[in-house]
């Protein structure tokens, strides 16, 4: 019988500091040590994995790379608790443990032919980044791509260089924002939900995926509906404290669903049926 608690060995290929300030985010690119593990670790955008530091513990982190990026699996991690702090101490070449992938994923096959809108805030861009890379690597399968992303300050923006580069591309529209005015910032200043209303993306033949702080998600959902998006066109991801990743340890439930195995991806329609999700 497979032991789902037994993690695989992974090596850190590179570490990139994404943000500065009091909530440091770093992106860790990992490579599984074992060849057969590498081949069997098949994931899709939206899925998560348990990252661990032996002797310290494990944390469930969403995968920020796309399965089309074969060379490594990337995780963007905010320094927060005991485990994420220990991971932040690690450097390229250091080992970490990895198990997964866990949970469901964004229905990217169903979305073929549609326009994709992502609305992210802060570290919430991590799973959205996986979608963006996947869609860009399968560009002809999808329609227009709009990326709305914001953070408190420029120091808190993840994937800056990459997004600035995307801004120059013809086949994708990037709308960045920060909450408070800063010198040298000529893009939008204000909260992400307001930026969304300002840009007014068309709901026609589109899906919208949002991820970020709970309060941002709440207003983004409201504004998407106001823009004419149907409930069935809206997706988000949830997070909760997790220990096992396989629906046994109990704590990540939102009503009858377990975020680790039934989530983390939920459509607005599903969320509405979960009073504990508190979206309305």
């Amino acid at each position, binding site marked *: *019988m497979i032991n789902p*608690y037994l993690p695989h060995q992974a090596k850190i290929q590179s570490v990139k500091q994404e943000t500065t300030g009091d909530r440091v985010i770093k992106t860790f690119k990992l490579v599984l040590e074992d060849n057969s593990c590498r081949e069997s670790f098949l994931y899709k955008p939206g899925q998560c994995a348990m990252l661990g530091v*032996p002797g310290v*513990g494990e944390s469930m982190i969403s995968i920020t790379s796309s399965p089309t990026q074969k060379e490594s699996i990337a995780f963007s991690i905010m320094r927060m608790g005991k*485990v994420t702090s220990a991971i932040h101490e690690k450097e390229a070449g250091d080992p970490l443990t990895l198990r997964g992938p866990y949970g469901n994923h964004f229905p990217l096959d169903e979305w073929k032919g549609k326009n994709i809108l992502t609305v992210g805030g802060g570290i919430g861009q991590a799973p959205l980044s996986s979608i963006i890379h996947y869609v860009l690597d399968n560009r002809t399968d999808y329609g227009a791509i709009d990326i709305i992303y914001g953070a408190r300050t420029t120091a808190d923006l993840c994937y800056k260089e990459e997004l600035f580069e995307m801004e120059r591309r013809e086949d994708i529209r990037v709308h960045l924002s920060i909450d408070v005015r800063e010198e040298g910032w000529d893009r939008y200043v204000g909260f992400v939900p307001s930026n969304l209303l300002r840009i007014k993306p068309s709901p026609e033949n589109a899906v919208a995926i949002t991820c970020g702080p709970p309060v941002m998600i709440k207003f983004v959902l409201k504004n998407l509906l106001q823009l004419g998006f149907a409930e069935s066109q809206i997706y988000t991801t949830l997070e909760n*404290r997790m220990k096992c990743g396989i629906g*046994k340890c109990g704590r990540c*439930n939102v009503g009858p669903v377990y975020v680790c195995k039934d989530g983390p991806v939920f459509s607005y329609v599903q969320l509405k049926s979960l*009073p504990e999700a508190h979206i309305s």
Partner: protein
Amino acid sequence: MENYGLKKDSLKEFLKTLQDVELFAPVRRGDVTAFEHVSDPEGVALDLEHQPLPAKKLLLPQTEILFAFDKKGLPKEPDFRGTKKKRFVFGVRPCDARGFGIIDSVYEKDCPDPYYVAKRSNTVLAGLQCSHPFPNCFCTSLGGSPSSSEGLDLLFFDCGGSYLIEVYTEKGQQVVKEAQSLLSSPSAEQITEKEKVVREAAERIQRSLSLDGVLRNMEILFEDPIWGDMARKCISCGICTYTCPTCYCFDIQDEKIQGKAKRVRIWDSCMFGEYTLHASGHNPRPTRAERLRNRMYHKFKHNIDLHGIAGCVGCGRCITLCPANEDLIENLQSIESAR
């Protein structure tokens, strides 16, 4: 089904005869009893009333090492079977045995838990019929009974001077075979007596509830202030969940002693505030009201929706042992009568 008679004063001898098994049974610890590995059956104490922990802990230990790490930080392949010998658990309350069925629906399906499954398949459960159910027992309201055979390999009925043993499974038969010399065919009197104790035990159940109205009302009561009122007495300890034969939630922690690290899982309780606390400080269930509500929904709605059975067997421990007198039955009745 096979059945046998066993003289009461031969019970200890019967247990001693079981050579190829490791015996687990309740033993006295202070003024309560607890299931433990028993090397000398003389120590077996069949006081099932003062038994805060059900036999659950034998298949789902409170602390279980998932694996140790070697010096390089690599996990060492664990031996989750623990013992090569079969385990024979004697003196299980029928309600607790039904509890395993509820845990099975989570632990044996949909990515099975190897630690639990290994112990489960290696364990023979021998029940003891509850001839005198306790004041807060309500198993009969949840599809069980003091004489339920569900989940058991064999069941002992106390017929005064002797036991009548019913054997339900091949696994149970295998074990009993070894003690054949102590067993007899049950006499007609024993069978009559057994029927009498079964009938009388069911009549002795004093408490009951109906879940129909509860299920209906749970559809509409989620945001009701009833949960705050209900949780007001609760002191957020772990007694109701730890002593529950169907609660299975756990925490995973890495622990290090003198540089030797291991990953352990330890029972956890949804009644603790820390249970759902995010590292960021956000807590989706920050107060006692949300936590008690979650526990009630999990046991009496979600479990029924997901697995077709309530997450409760009516053992009454959470009522008897609650320091604040939270009464599960009264709480369910107040849900039922809320609208």
